[in-house]
């Protein structure tokens, strides 16, 4: 498939997605006392992950602008289906 010229993940309205390192991931899971099963999910085919070297099981950190908090941080685990 030809890659489209337009990159969604670079658009201003797309919040920043960043992959967590293995260490950061375990820290995150520990902080919330959860396994990756309880985290919110993101599809591996999500447009925002297109330019990222990420595989199912990885966690992405999403930093968004928020009307209530200024900036909010969200984590999602990449899934297959």
């Amino acid at each position, binding site marked *: 498939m030809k890659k489209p010229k337009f990159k969604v993940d670079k658009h201003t309205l797309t919040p920043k997605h960043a992959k967590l390192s293995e260490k950061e991931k375990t820290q995150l899971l520990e902080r919330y006392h959860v396994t990756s099963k*309880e985290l*919110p999910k993101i599809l591996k085919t999500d447009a925002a992950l297109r330019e990222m070297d990420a595989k199912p099981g990885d966690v992405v950190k999403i930093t968004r602008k*928020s009307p*209530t*908090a200024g900036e909010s941080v969200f984590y999602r685990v990449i899934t297959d289906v």
Partner: protein
Amino acid sequence: MAEEETSKKTEQELEVVKQAISGKEEKIGRIEREEQHIYKQVKSIVFSVLSPKMIKKMSSAKIVTPELYDKEGYPVDGGLMDIRLGVIDPGLRCKTCGSKLKECIGHFGYIELARPIIHVKFVNIVLTLVKCTCRDCGRILIPDNKISKIKEILDQVEKDSGVEERRQKVKEIIATLKTVNKCPHCKSKQKKITMEKPTTFIEEEKRLSPIEIRARLEKISDLDCEIFGLKVPYVRPEWMVLTVLSIPPVTMRPSITLESGERSEDDLTHKLGDIVRINQRLFENINAGAPEIIVEDLWDLLQYHVTTFFDNNIAQLPPARHRSGQPLKTLTERIKSKEGRIRHNLAGKRTNFSARTVISPDPMLELFEVGIPFIIATKLTVPERVNEWNIHYLKQFVEMGHDKYPGANYIIRPDGKKKKITEETKEASIEELQPGYIVERHLMDGDVAIFNRQPSLHRMSMMCHRVKVLPGKTLRLNPAVCTPYNADFDGDEMNLHIPQTEEARAEAEILMEVQTQLISLRYGLSIIGCTQDAISGNYVLTKDESVKREDAIDLLSAVGVTDFSKLPRKSIVTGKETFSVLLPDDFDYTGHSRSCDRSKEKCDKDAHVVIKGGKLVSGAMDRNSLGEESGLMLRNIHQKYGKDFSINLLGKIFRLGIEYLLRIGFTSALSDTDLPESARAEIKENLDNAKKEVDSLIAQFREGKLDAFPGKTMQETLELKILELLNKARNATGKTVANHADKRTHTMIMAESGARGNLLNLAQMAACVGQQAMRGKRIEKGFSQRTLSHFRKNDYSPEAHGFISNGFKTGLTPSEFFFGSMTGRDSLMDTALRTPKSGYLYRRLANAMQDLKVEYDNTVRDASQKIIQFEYGEDGIDVSKSEHGFINVKRIIQTIA
């Protein structure tokens, strides 16, 4: 061969069942032995079809006779009320499990059908199966080489998009098979099969009997079944044609004994009786070698009875009826629709100790009270347990009887027996009463009640009130609590519930009392506040008014104040001083009133509300300070002095406003909309100018000289420009009206204080109603190229497209009135259509979010501990403890310093 296969299958299936049963027995045994609960997660649920063997295995009686009872009224063995199927008579014991009435849950039975019967609920599956398999060899009409490929596709679809999609795909495949007319396996020719609803199958004009159908279904191999979505140990196609019929236990079709001593049987029992009777006759006729026609007639009749036993609402069949002509309620009707088991019994619950009537307002009630008519108070009761200290007190109620207030309706003995108190039993009841008994006494002032108005969208839609028994026939509430209930008094009805246990009362008091619901958890402001007259009254009083000291005291004592030491010792006191009496001495507050223009540093003296040391120094009380959903002053009082104080204060302020208005009189007059001659001339000139400008725009348009906006046609540009111009003109008239209107008129006071109405309403009455718009555009519907037949075609003038230049007082021209009605109807329709839509939207949201919870680490999680939000609301603020969603740091510093 086919039979051999099926028996093997049933053995397999029996094994599955046996395992399940023995597993269950083991579990039950363990629970009893160790009294220990076992928690297990449900991994999957299998829905399957009962096989004839299974039906026989799970039943405890074979039913052979349609008779129900013998001469002594004892259930007949082998009849439909056989006591092996469970007991519904007191005193009898179940022959199967040995337990008594209510302990025995009932047991299934079965009848052997003389001829196979097609199960109505499966006819569609049976039809596709018969159509898609060979009539000779029973194989699916797909060549061998393609079968595996199709299976692969199906598995792939299921993996990719779920079972639902797989079923869809199966349907598509089946649709292609219906045209195949030669079996790819045995090469035999296929005949066309049609179904005549509900249960008759026809193969090229020859009728297929259920026996033939069943024989064909038996021939289908297990592997072929899987393509149709039937997995073999659970479902075999031939089970969809019944050879034995399962009989439900008597406990699910109990008979009722009428007052005359006659027994009236349940609808299901009636239907089953029909089935058994016809079945017996069919057996007899077959055994006697009766002619084929008679047998077939009986067979069809049996088919009809079995069909209506499952579903009595089949379009092509006349429903089976009682002798009275009312249709029987059989299995499907028991479950289906609004009156069915699910929506009526499982999702819908009913309650005792509740009341419902029309509501009406009573501002003299406290906010947390509810006025209850005597008639209701003598019907609703509160149980009180007798002990040695209250026995005398409770005997007084019993003494009064059930019809005099305050009396009691029932006494309950310690063994749970309920006794009604009547004139005759009264004396005996009083004698009998001793500690341990319970007296159900009438509702009295101060009792706890839960008050509710539907739709209950909020937690504030159900609040706990204190009972106040009043004369009259309506439920009464303080008008200030209308907002949380969203109630008005145009005929609204509300519900009242009386908690019956100590726990329920405590819970209602602590969690649901009106006081606890003052601050909205949606936006962090007071939802309960002053409304309408209460705002106007306080506004007038605190604006520039001064009253005689005696009048002020009269006013305050009417409100419920007894301590007047705060009122200055002058013969004439100001309204502000009078109002300040209500405020606590150490209360400080600064805020803006509605007349404050926040852009300017300094504005009118009354624009800034300043309260210092419990004295209203400047500013008039209006909606910004007192109102519901905005009252900032109320929010601050709540923060500092707590709920009980603020609810008491709010009630007083509310009554102060009303009492003051009562004394001065307050009304809205026609003359309020009068304008001086100069103002009218100004408005006229203004509108004329606008019309002229519009005319010139239209002229430009006709000449084609109008500059179109980018991306718009010239016509659209014209419309936009006209709309803008006319809006500007209307706003200008509004301003003129505002400048010239007499500020002292009551209409203006209402608008200024925010009690009711606004300047726009006044301008519409006094000067000009303005442009009527539908869907953001001028009115354009109606006749071809014009709105009404009164205008020329392609008339773009304001008056031809719904501009109303008259005010309501001067009156509208006929065409103006028509345009007004158009938008009026449009908005009426809009609300009528939107309400159910938004209601459904809300329901879906509420159901989706119902058990989300904020955990101690500030995350929002669902019932399975899955994280929904990492920080509640992204900022972790509890809105109900904030001011409008924000934390006012400045105020906190001020209060600390």
